[in-house]
């Protein structure tokens, strides 16, 4: 660890952790700030945000591929409705997985610092998380088609736990990824 003679010893001891937190918060704030600006722009232009639209569209294709016949897909400013008539799933901005994907990226930047390799890891992570989110919503459409509301909510939280578990497993593997990338 570097020596910082001008810092009090208590703060110097905590410095790596403080820097991790600062990098995390800065990355998260910057990315979420850009996304909020984009959402303001969509509000101004009366359009739905591209991420929610794309996640809903791909989930619709997946649900069709998984056998939901007569699957419909329609989008409005407040979100998209996907599924069979009477059993539609409302995909809103909060379901698009981007906030969690941004948190994922913020941790990678916080842990490994800002460099090109980190950027590549963040982009790969965003794609994996969005892929998992599309799978989650696609399967939820199928389950909604087959089962009732209570079942649907339990599955919804089960998938939430699974997406969290997969992200945190990737995070816990970060020291290993860093070792590979250094080679």
């Amino acid at each position: 660890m570097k020596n910082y003679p001008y810092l009090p010893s208590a703060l110097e001891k905590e410095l790596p952790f403080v820097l991790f937190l600062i990098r995390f918060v800065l990355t998260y704030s910057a990315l979420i700030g850009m996304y909020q600006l984009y959402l303001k722009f969509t509000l101004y232009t009366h359009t739905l945000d591209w991420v929610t639209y794309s996640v809903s569209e791909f989930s619709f294709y997946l649900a069709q591929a998984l056998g939901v016949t007569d699957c419909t897909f329609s989008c409005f400013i407040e979100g998209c409705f996907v599924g069979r008539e009477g059993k539609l799933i409302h995909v809103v901005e909060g379901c698009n997985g981007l906030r969690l994907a941004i948190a994922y990226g913020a941790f990678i930047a916080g842990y490994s610092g800002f460099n090109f390799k980190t950027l590549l890891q963040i982009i790969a992570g965003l794609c994996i998380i969005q892929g998992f989110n599309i799978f989650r919503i696609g399967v939820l459409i199928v389950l909604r088609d087959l089962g009732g509301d209570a079942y649907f909510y339990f599955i919804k939280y089960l998938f939430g736990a699974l997406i969290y578990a997969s992200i945190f497993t990737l995070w816990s593997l970060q020291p290993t990824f860093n070792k590979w990338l250094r080679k």
Partner: protein
Amino acid sequence: MKRTDLYLWIATYMLLSVPINLYRHTYNLEIADMPLLYGSTALIKVVLSLYFLEKVQMNTARKTMVLATSIALRLVFGAPWLALCIGGAIFQSSQIKKL
């Protein structure tokens, strides 16, 4: 941090969320309609996080920093605050070479 602890943390957190959300959807309530129930669940989640942060030998200063930052991010941006708590625990574990 052991992976079993990590998964136990997520599972417990999610299990705490399920009943309150089922109750909300069953009676069609907003969070503002049940501040006491929501507040007590949030408090239990904070205590749960403190327990797991303690398990990775985090000192009081670090625990305070992690919780304060994650709750601030939650309030300002609606961020998933559990993510920063777990991220902090993973970073701490890698520092003490327990991963």
